[in-house]
């Protein structure tokens, strides 16, 4: 079936490739390779959407990415719904399902269109002036209704089954825009042999050659030349050609983001294909060949379906073979719309009249139009479009007033002139300059290594464009300065233009049919329903900056980002302000050029690739044991090991008791480890830690505290001295990377004279803590070459030897208060050594324990956790760790910071123990402490609970807290007010279990 508005013989599509599709439930036939817009137009469908504010019926304004009106939802399946798709960009495939948006119950009858009738009330910024009474009404009544009426499509509600990919690329010359200019520039650059990338947002290269029927290059039709040239480029090894690839952002130092739409145009994309691919290109030179966008005429009811840009009508005809009407009118202020009238007339479409706002234009196109018998009117304006769901007439009047004449039409093609697409240039931080003669902003001052060519540079005419672009491409290649430029054997010849069209000039702002009548709606921004009157009102209300006008009226803030509306809005504002356009200023062009999916930006970083999941060597053992894991930074750490029927508390209670009774095994592999090596290692340690290190004997360990320069605790850990010049430093799990960076910073920049080097060994060693009275019995049978006796291996010592036949660094240390060891083995042996120790442990009734039990056991002993009991505002003194600060040291990082007045003042918060009066009550971590529970809110808070647990070993709850003047309050009763009652607590020391520390050797 040939759709009614398809013109046999016109267009470039293979008519045989039929694609069935549906729109709002109605089935249609289209042709593969055309856009949804083209296919709907071929079927005579113009009404496709409703506007944002007034819900006015809307059709197609354009044939490209600048489309403000024709936004539809495309639905592949329930999870693959995409809202706000421009029908003018979406390519048709067999089975495509599209739906209109923002209307209820139907597109033709939209209840919210009542807003159109009430529109005088909904003027620019009206919502700032009302909906304020009563106070709560905004949130409860007005806002929900406004929100429901606003918005366009409906967001997807299921996870997206499609995937997105990404690529970094580098090239010498990046050419953005694949029209005549871009192709010429790419040809010139490519033949020098440099690396070239040419990208265009359309499926087909050619840009305006798609519709410019008058262009001939190298003896061919312009579009055919473009295809040949691109094919030649694709065949070159040094060229990458990307179609359907939109350069959306131009970032610092010639870094350009492009999104390539890989499969949205395919009927059934293979699973291996990404939906979109993000290209992040670093180019030595960028050639901007982004073309120009036609502007509409601003006159009353210029938004009726069927009123569209003249170039769009040409694209539909010349490229897709579709007529946008049977009897069209043309309204223009420049020459280019004449070509549309001529093309349509030649294709057999009736052209009712051309209305030209200019008084005495001359030129060959005008002569040609007349010769074809088209009525041409000069000095006249279209003051109104008739019709509602489809334009039915245009009313014409001499532009200075006079008799009106209404001409029946079924489409109006309009052109107010062309706006150079300086978006990317402007994003590159280049400054545009206003050309008063041609009334357009063109690239002025460049900020990056790029050049603009062709229409986006304000260059008119195909011949001049190709000359300019070809020269620019060659220069860009030369400037990129690549050594083997010229290596390509194919020597190019500059394309020769045989025939071209030229269409400069035009008008900006409101045409005579744009008011000032109060009831007139002459749209500047279609999607956001901004009229010429709204812009004038904004100025009257004191908005003098174009940014204010934009924000007050929302002009240019719709999904088309003002591609057709910005210049008109600016001109109307300038006129109202009686100021020249450049003085009012241009709004900032912001990335993205056209909207890009979140998915394309995210790329691979979804699911397992959102963030690395780090697992220890022992993880594969813990998982099948039923361990529950917690996230600590990127690590998964075994949290507790529940047995059948145990909840967390039961598991932790059992683990805690077992460790103190016999022994437990704990995976401590995530602790950061840094090997500090060199003759000045001890000197370096002296500077980075508060503790003294010079006198620590090889084979011994010490608990070290690291401060920031401001005197607050930054990290802690046990450090073993392996040799005079070698330390094995441990850090907190989360602190490992920043501690390494901190140490490198001081080493490289403050203490570069020290002969010492740092190596991260976190992942070299798996660490198995074996803690408890039976720990030595468990380890000893497996160890070779280390005397495990208390005399030879006392608490806080380290030896190197072998365990299970593999090398080990065996630490005698304890974070539980029990006799304890930490067995370091090369990571790949971690699991096997753990299993061997586990087997030994089983003989003694040992358990595996997780981080929760580790926390409870250390809290029973009053050992702190940096980041939990300290919070970046705690000094060693506050934490009761003064003993770890070398009193005789003259320098270490933090020595001065910790002496600042407020850090040594009285009344600082100090870490203490808390016991609830009712031993069964476990405080909540983070709970606040007060001295007087009866005071009114706001209460004076004197501290907070940092750690709190049920201690099965103590048979009661225990807690640590930071309390103002805490160490002076021993025995004092304080209060923890909770929502359902105040808890009484007693301030105590921090050690709740084995106060004398006898069990370390027990």
């Amino acid at each position, binding site marked *: 079936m040939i759709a009614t508005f398809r013109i046999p013989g016109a267009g470039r599509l293979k008519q045989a490739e039929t694609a069935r599709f549906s729109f709002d439930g109605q089935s249609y036939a289209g042709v593969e390779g055309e856009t949804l817009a083209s296919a709907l137009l071929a079927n005579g469908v113009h009404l496709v959407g409703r506007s*944002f504010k007034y819900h006015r019926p809307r059709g197609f304004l354009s044939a490209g990415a600048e489309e403000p009106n024709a936004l539809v939802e495309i639905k592949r399946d329930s999870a693959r719904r*995409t809202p*706000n798709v421009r029908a003018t960009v979406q390519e048709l495939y067999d089975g495509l399902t599209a739906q209109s948006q923002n209307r209820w119950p139907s597109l033709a009858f939209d209840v919210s269109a009542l807003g159109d009738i009430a529109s005088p*009330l909904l003027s*620019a910024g009206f919502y*700032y*002036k009302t909906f*304020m009474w009563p*106070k709560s009404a*905004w949130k409860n009544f007005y*806002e929900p209704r406004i*929100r*429901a009426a*606003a*918005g*366009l499509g409906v*967001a*997807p509600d299921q*996870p997206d089954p*499609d995937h997105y990919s990404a690529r970094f690329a580098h090239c010498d010359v990046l050419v953005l825009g694949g029209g005549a200019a871009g192709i010429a520039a790419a040809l010139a650059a490519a033949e020098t042999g440099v690396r070239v990338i040419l990208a265009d947002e359309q499926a087909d290269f050619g840009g305006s050659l798609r519709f410019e029927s008058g262009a001939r290059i190298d003896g061919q039709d312009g579009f055919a030349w473009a295809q040949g040239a691109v094919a030649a480029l694709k065949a070159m090894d040094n060229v990458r050609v990307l179609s359907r690839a939109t350069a959306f952002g131009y970032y*610092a130092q010639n870094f350009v983001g492009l999104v390539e739409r890989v499969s949205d145009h395919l009927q059934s994309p293979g699973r291996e294909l990404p939906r979109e691919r993000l290209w*992040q290109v670093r180019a030595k030179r960028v050639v901007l060949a982004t073309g120009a966008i036609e502007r509409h005429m601003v006159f009353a009811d210029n938004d009726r379906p069927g009123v569209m840009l003249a170039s769009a009508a040409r694209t539909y005809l010349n490229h897709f073979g579709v007529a946008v009407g049977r009897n069209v009118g043309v309204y223009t202020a420049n020459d280019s719309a004449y070509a549309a009238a001529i093309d349509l007339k030649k294709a057999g479409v009736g052209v009712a009249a051309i209305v030209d706002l200019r008084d005495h234009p001359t030129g060959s196109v005008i002569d040609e139009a007349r010769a074809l018998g088209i009525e041409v009117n000069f000095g006249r304006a279209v003051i109104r479009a008739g019709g509602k769901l489809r334009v039915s007439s245009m009313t014409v009047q001499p532009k200075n007033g006079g008799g009106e004449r209404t001409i029946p039409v079924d489409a109006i093609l309009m052109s107010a002139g062309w706006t150079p697409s300086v978006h990317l240039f402007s994003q590159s*931080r280049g400054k545009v300059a206003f050309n008063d003669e041609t009334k357009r902003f063109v690239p002025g001052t460049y900020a990056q290594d790029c050049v603009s060519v062709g229409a986006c540079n304000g260059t008119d005419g195909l011949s001049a464009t190709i000359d300019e672009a070809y020269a620019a491409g060659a220069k860009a290649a030369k400037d990129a300065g690549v050594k083997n430029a010229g290596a390509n054997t194919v020597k190019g010849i500059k394309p020769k233009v045989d025939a071209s069209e030229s269409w400069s000039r035009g008008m900006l702002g409101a045409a005579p049919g744009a008011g000032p009548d*109060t009831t007139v709606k002459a749209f500047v921004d279609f999607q956001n329903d901004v009229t010429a*009157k709204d812009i004038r*009102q904004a100025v*009257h*209300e*004191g908005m003098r900056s174009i940014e*204010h006008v934009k924000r*007050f009226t929302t002009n240019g*803030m719709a*999904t088309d980002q003002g591609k057709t509306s910005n210049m008109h809005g600016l001109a109307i504002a300038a006129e109202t302000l009686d100021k020249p356009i450049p003085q009012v200023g241009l709004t900032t062009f*912001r990335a993205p050029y056209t*909207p890009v*999916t*979140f*998915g394309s930006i995210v790329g691979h*970083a*979804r699911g397992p690739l*959102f963030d690395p999941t780090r697992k220890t060597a022992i993880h594969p053992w813990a998982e099948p044991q039923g361990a529950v894991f917690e*996230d*600590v*930074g990127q690590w998964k750490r075994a949290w507790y090991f529940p047995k059948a029927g145990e909840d967390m508390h039961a598991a932790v209670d059992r683990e805690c008791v077992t460790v103190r009774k016999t022994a437990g095994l704990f995976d401590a592999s995530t602790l950061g480890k840094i090997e500090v090596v060199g003759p000045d290692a001890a000197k370096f340690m002296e500077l980075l830690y508060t503790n003294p290190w010079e006198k620590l004997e090889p084979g011994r360990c010490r608990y070290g505290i690291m401060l920031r320069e*401001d005197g607050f605790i930054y990290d802690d850990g046990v450090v073993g001295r392996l040799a005079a010049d070698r330390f094995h430093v441990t850090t907190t799990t989360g602190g490992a990377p920043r501690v390494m960076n901190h140490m490198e910073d001081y080493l490289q920049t403050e203490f570069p004279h020290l002969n010492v080097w740092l190596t991260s060994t976190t992942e070299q060693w798996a660490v198995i803590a074996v803690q408890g009275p039976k720990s030595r019995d468990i380890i000893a049978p497996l160890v070779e070459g280390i005397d495990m006796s208390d005399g030879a291996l006392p608490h806080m010592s380290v030896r190197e030897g072998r365990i299970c036949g593999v090398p080990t660094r065996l630490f005698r240390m304890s974070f539980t208060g029990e006799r304890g060891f930490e067995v370091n083995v090369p990571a790949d042996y971690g699991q096997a050594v753990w299993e061997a120790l586990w087997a030994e442990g089983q003989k003694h009734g040992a358990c595996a324990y997780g981080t929760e039990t580790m926390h409870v056991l250390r809290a029973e002993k009053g050992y702190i*956790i940096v*980041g939990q009991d300290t*919070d970046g*505002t705690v000094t060693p003194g506050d934490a009761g760790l003064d003993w770890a600060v070398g009193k005789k040291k003259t320098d270490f990082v933090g020595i001065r910071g910790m002496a*600042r*007045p*407020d850090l040594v003042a009285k009344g600082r918060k100090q870490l203490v123990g808390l016991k609830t009066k009712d031993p069964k009550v476990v405080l*909540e971590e*983070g*709970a*606040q402490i007060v001295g007087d529970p009866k005071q009114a*809110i706001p*209460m004076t*808070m004197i501290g*907070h609970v940092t750690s709190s647990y049920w201690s099965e070993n103590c048979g009661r709850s225990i807690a640590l807290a930071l309390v103002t003047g805490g160490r002076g309050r021993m025995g004092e009763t304080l209060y923890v007010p909770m929502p359902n009652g105040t808890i009484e607590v007693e301030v105590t020391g921090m050690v709740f279990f084995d106060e004398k520390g006898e069990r370390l050797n027990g």
Partner: protein
Amino acid sequence: MKKYSVFAIAREAMRGHKGWEEQWSSPEPKKEYDVIIVGAGGHGLATAYYLATVHGITNVAVLEKGWLGGGNTGRNTTIIRSNYLYDESAGIYDHALKLWDGLSQELNYNVMYSPRGVMMLAHNVHDIQVLKRHVHANRLNGIDNEWLTPEAAKEFCPPLNISRDARYPVMGATLQRRGGTARHDAVAWGYARGASVRGVHIIQNCEVTGVKRAPNGAVMGVETTRGFIGAKKVGVVAAGHSSVIMNMAGVRMPLESYPLQALVSEPVKPVFPCVVMSNTVHAYISQSDKGELVIGAGTDQYISYSQTGGLHILQHTLDAICEMFPMFTRMKMLRSWGGIVDVTPDRSPILAKTPVPGLYVNCGWGTGGFKATPGSGHVFAHTIARDDPHPINAPFTIERFRTGRLIDEAAAAAVAH
């Protein structure tokens, strides 16, 4: 000032909206004012407004190098909340929150303060400890903030992914119901209108190029691109440019200015009912009245006044958004932009007198200044008018960095261990 109301709109609708008066005037600068405020953002304009309304000081100029409300006021993601940990922060932000409630009526300008709830997510045990510490401190400070289970969080925000299989599962959340959003432009414009009608001069396109000081060191006025303007009191409220202006007066500041980016999606029908913040996954999101998802990104790592940032910063943000809300990958980013945020070493603002007599500074709001706008302006006006800080801003001195009496909310959140 002609009052705004639905009746005024109806009246104007009859005559094509031609009767509206200018929301603010654009006078030529006088030679001298009692007070000059440098920076016509929300905080600066609010300061001028409260100088006029609370302290009766109307001979005031607000100088703006660009257009009013064009800096961070017009570039932020408009999150409003007051559930801060420390008494000092809670004090100033809750002071602001109380003023937000009723600001539309106070200004006769609908600033669209929408207390739709701000939810902050906990993804690990450490987050729970930190957020609960906030809940408890807030409760005793009389600030609403409640703890939600993951299920309750999802009920409040249906798009939230609370799957246990998520990379960082949601383990709970806090909710401040009075928190929410407001319309950023309206705040600046409402204060501008309120100040202007009371005689305050708002002078746009007037860049301060120098600060003039008398031989005794006191402020005499400012040099501008429109000539010298005298004043005995100058309040610097220049956000990212605060240290630049303060340098002109010879005061070096503990400030660094970073690019901060944000983005919005294309507008869609209501899908996201509240504000969600996740400090661990780094996602900050709400939906505007227009239907756009409003998403805040992080700062770039280097000092910059370029108002642009790197694409990788947006990637990082959207990674997190799509991880927490996996249905949003098909949504499209419509617009992204950058602001310049001035950050102090403890991430808390400076709102204080300075070593220079007659010079006052209100800066260092970092990434979260919008929410404080009314409160900040209110107490800064007090500070200038009385030459003495209001009790609420008294702790926010410059000197605290010398003494070490910091107000370090970020440090209090500590780090994973």
